[in-house]
């Protein structure tokens, strides 16, 4: 049975109704908990995890309508399927339940065949919704997923002040030539795990992974108090993590990895680009371009972390940077000031 093992909550002040509904649900293979009024039901929903709520409308202390109203404004409860079971007279009540977000309405006495069908369909819908949320999390980032869930999806962006970081593995092509494809995939997975850890730990969001490189944003979609400081902190930790990985790799007779990181700060447009069916969260602006150029320049400069003037200015005297002077970067009309972040 597809819905077997689901955990359901029955909220009904009438004991006979509660017992009978509980019995029917247990016969369908579900685990059932009971609440004798709306207030108790809401407390249980906030404390424990349920797959579906069967809700009576007419209850003391807190009515079913009030429960529905509270659930709509609760981020953790608003997606929980609700089937209203009631013997309230009048179609207006049914309409109000649906308006308040109830999935379905079953008149009492509840017909067991209808009950089974409605519950099966509601649980299936919930399963699909959960699956969708999981997918969004896997392919976006939890910040983007949250932003999507709260504000919905719309192509286009908004102007933000933020810091962009590009990172990639030096000489990756020659590494791949020395090992099997399986080893390369494993290396990339380890690399990404470590980099994600450092970046998200500092408050950044990885929004693109291409081959052996990645792009991350500090300050969007959610604002950060100190995007420059966070980005530089992440960069230093990334270098440290790679050094730790190298100790392990060299012990196993493998070549050491080297990464380059470019960081730039400024005004940019952040948002979704693509089409309505396939889109990606990204940032567009001079700072993005500059960060990519700085990352490419780490090789020539012989320094693993390079930042632009705006990032250096924002850091102030919090970090002793090495000024590398004005550098003519590829694709830039005028030379730009480049600074290296010292690594331990």
């Amino acid at each position, binding site marked *: 049975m597809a819905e077997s093992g689901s955990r359901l909550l029955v909220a009904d*002040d*009438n*004991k*006979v*109704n509660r*017992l*009978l509904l509980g*019995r*029917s649900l247990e*016969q369908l293979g579900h685990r059932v908990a009971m609440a004798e009024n709306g207030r108790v039901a809401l407390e249980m929903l906030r404390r424990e995890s349920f797959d579906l709520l069967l809700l009576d409308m*007419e209850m*003391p202390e807190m009515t079913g309508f009030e429960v529905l109203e509270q659930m709509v404004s609760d981020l953790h409860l608003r997606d929980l399927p609700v089937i209203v079971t009631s*013997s*309230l*007279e009048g179609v207006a009540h049914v309409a109000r339940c649906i308006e308040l977000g109830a999935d379905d309405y079953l008149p*009492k*006495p509840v017909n*067991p065949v209808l009950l089974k069908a409605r519950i099966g369909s509601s649980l299936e819908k919930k399963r699909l919704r959960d699956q969708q949320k999981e997918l969004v999390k896997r392919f976006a980032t939890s910040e983007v997923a949250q932003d999507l869930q709260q504000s919905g999806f719309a192509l286009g962006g908004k102007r933000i002040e933020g810091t962009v970081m590009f990172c990639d593995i030096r000489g990756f092509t020659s590494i791949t030539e020395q090992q099997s494809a399986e080893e390369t995939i494993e290396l990339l997975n380890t690399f990404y795990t470590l980099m994600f850890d450092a970046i998200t730990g500092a408050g950044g969001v990885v929004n693109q992974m291409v081959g052996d490189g990645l792009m991350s944003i500090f300050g969007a979609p959610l604002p950060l108090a100190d995007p420059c400081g966070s980005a530089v902190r992440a960069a230093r930790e990334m270098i440290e993590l790679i050094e730790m990985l190298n100790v392990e790799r060299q012990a196993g007779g493998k070549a050491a990895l080297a990464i380059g990181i470019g960081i730039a700060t400024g005004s940019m447009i952040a948002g979704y680009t693509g089409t309505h069916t396939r889109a990606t969260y990204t940032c567009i602006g001079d700072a993005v371009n500059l960060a990519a150029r700085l990352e490419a320049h780490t090789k020539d400069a012989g320094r693993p972390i390079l930042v632009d003037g705006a990032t250096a200015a924002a850091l102030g005297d919090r970090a002793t940077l090495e000024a590398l002077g004005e550098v003519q970067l590829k694709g830039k009309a005028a030379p730009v000031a480049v600074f290296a972040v010292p690594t331990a």
Partner: protein
Amino acid sequence: MSHTTIDPAIFAELKDTAGADFVADLVATFTDEEAPQMLAELRDALAAGSAERFRRAAHSLKSNAMTFGALPLGELARGLELGGLPADAAPVDALQAELARAADALRGLCRG
């Protein structure tokens, strides 16, 4: 008599789907615990002049009566639910008499 006290088809279906032992317990819960409380609530609400409490108690009784197939009892309770506070206790007395008949019939059906 237009109706039997308990609609035999509804009660038989309840027994078939929920199980005879479970229904016997459920009937006892209704006749011995819940229904007397609802009846007391109807009388208290009437004495206190609380139309809302009266309506709720009648609503609850209607709901359970329909579950067991006690259709005449359900109809009386529904009349009270929708009719507002009655002028005197006569409709509640009538309901109590029908409730006693329904409770007897239900107990009999559980034994049979």
